[in-house]
């Protein structure tokens, strides 16, 4: 029986309903802060939007100026008998209210590019996703097999990992100019940056995961006659594949962070181009919407991958969940799942 009194969840997992409630709260709390700052007029709102300039010389209708300047202008005007201006407090243009950003989710897609050769938002997003996809795919095609080999065989590990460990510290953006020189100014150097950023982490994280395979399982397989490559294919791989899958989900998240770097290389492109362009036009609602879209795409991808993972590795799920159906049920299941292991696992040996 689950004890209902343990609200902190120090010793045991919280009841499912509470977990769901807290998950929703974790999203609502920052949103609430944003709403307060946006809609409560006496909270922050450091500027004054002038609605009626009165007879103050430097006021004009629609201008926004710091409150102190506004009050000083009015005070000066009153001293010499001029009519003061009127206005109301507003936030700076770079902090749009939630409803404006919500609207921008729709309007950003309808905003026609100012120049005829500029991409629409959906084109920018598509290009970003394409860059991520190819970068992550190319990195994985080499990184995953190499990581598995490093984890399984100490020879490969010793031969590869020291250099990769060194390479990991070279920041991917530092290769930007080089990539452009070698690969031109289109998507190729951008994909290369994602590969450079992802690859070394991928090899090291996956080899660490593979090294964590319970050595007694390998010993058991050996006593049953498994040898060499069969040992890798029939024991080491299946024993670690679900953890490798989890690693890949986390690594994909990292690839997204490299995207923004990659997109400023050569000609600025994709979602970064859109964000920069909109910021230049001071359409900050569009900027926030675009940033949020990256988060939503990443989060949704992870949800989908988690769901696929639960299907693929049913044996791993143990008898924990009862199997839910429907999108809401899947979401609940995701919310309720045990936290995944830490990203960077220590390399301590598991042998006694």
């Amino acid at each position: 029986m689950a004890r209902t009194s343990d609200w902190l969840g120090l010793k045991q997992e919280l009841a499912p309903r509470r977990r769901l409630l807290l998950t929703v709260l974790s999203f609502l709390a920052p949103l609430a802060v944003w709403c307060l700052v946006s809609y409560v007029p006496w909270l922050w709102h450091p500027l004054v939007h002038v609605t009626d300039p009165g007879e103050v010389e430097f006021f004009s209708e629609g201008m926004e100026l710091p409150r102190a300047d506004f009050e000083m202008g009015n005070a000066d005007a009153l001293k010499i008998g001029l009519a003061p201006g009127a206005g109301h407090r507003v936030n700076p243009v770079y902090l749009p209210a939630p409803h404006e950003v919500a609207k921008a989710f729709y309007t950003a897609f309808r905003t026609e590019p100012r120049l005829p050769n500029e991409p629409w938002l959906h084109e920018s997003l598509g290009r970003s996703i394409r860059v991520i996809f190819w970068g992550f795919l190319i990195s994985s095609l080499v990184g995953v097999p190499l990581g598995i080999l490093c984890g399984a065989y100490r020879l490969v590990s010793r031969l590869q990992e020291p250099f990769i460990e060194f390479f990991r510290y070279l920041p991917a953006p530092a290769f930007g100019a080089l990539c452009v020189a070698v690969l031109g100014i289109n998507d190729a150097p951008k994909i290369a940056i994602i590969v450079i950023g992802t690859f070394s982490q991928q090899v090291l994280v996956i080899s660490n995961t593979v090294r964590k395979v319970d050595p007694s399982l390998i010993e058991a397989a050996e006593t049953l006659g498994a040898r060499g490559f069969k040992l890798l294919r029939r024991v080491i791989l299946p024993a670690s594949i679900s953890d490798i899958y989890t690693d890949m989900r986390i690594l994909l998240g990292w690839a997204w962070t490299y995207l923004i770097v990659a997109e400023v290389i050569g000609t600025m492109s994709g979602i970064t181009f859109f964000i920069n362009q909109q910021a230049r036009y001071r359409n900050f609602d569009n900027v926030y919407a675009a940033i949020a879209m990256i988060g939503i795409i990443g989060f949704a991808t992870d949800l989908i991958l988690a769901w696929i993972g639960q299907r693929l590795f049913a044996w791993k799920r143990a008898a924990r969940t009862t199997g839910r159906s429907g999108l809401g049920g899947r979401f609940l299941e995701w919310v309720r799942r045990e936290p995944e292991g830490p990203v960077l696992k220590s390399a301590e040996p598991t042998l006694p």
Partner: protein
Amino acid sequence: MTTAPASPDAYLRKSPEVVARFQRLYQRPVLLQLRGLRKTFLSNGSEQVVFDDVSMDVHRREFLTVIGPSGCGKSTLIRIVAGLDDASGGEVLLDGRPVDSPGPDRGVVFQGYTLFPWLTVKRNVMFGLEMRGKGSALAEEVARSWLDMVGLAKFENSYPHELSGGMKQRVAIARALANEPRVLIMDEPFGALDAQTRSRMQGHLLQIWKKVDVTILFITHDLDEAIHLSDRILVLGVNPGGIREIIENPVPRPRTAAQSHSPEFLALRARLDALIHAPAAGDEEEGEDKLPMARMTMAGDDVE
């Protein structure tokens, strides 16, 4: 309380039937030979000897248990036989051929079950057969018959995490035996089970051993279990590490639970207790049964 055996040598007395059994056993060919096995390890730059000069012959279809105090290297010894560890000296011969790596002729059942969690029970049992290149149809048939033999036919499509500890260990035994090993090596296989399950598993194991052509090397720290199962008992010691004694078990077969009060059983038990728990030179754990504690309760508030 049962009466203690009259003489410390009582465990050497055997009924004529038991003597005849041992004669038959020794006429069987020698299957496994340990020749001057030695294991050392480096500690702070100096060489520590775990055991030295361990030599004995194990006959075909013998049930040998290995016991000894902690640190005597009994697990290391059978890991060497299994080919999972290297000896520092000496050799192990199976059917006259030296052992240097793990192989399907020596099945191992570990204390921690070590079933493959991603495979169903049936696929676990099929694993060794597939590794040896048997076709999957044949492997499946063999696996089914073994699961039948250990009473788990109904669970062939379950995953290991769905089974209890005793059931897992039965699958592990079936998996090892499906490979038809010459020797079945068991490293405290029932150590993690509760007392009831353990005694049931001991019964299962004896039944299997009777029906299958297999020699068993069984490690345990449970002296009663050692007596209940074995033909001979190899007692290892520490300081110096090595063979203390190889004892012929005087308890007649077939074994029953009731025998644990028989004079032979008690005599052997007394001998094993003396061997295992005798204070050895440099043994620091001994003599510390009395803790140097001051009294922290009121006078008269006694519990004993």
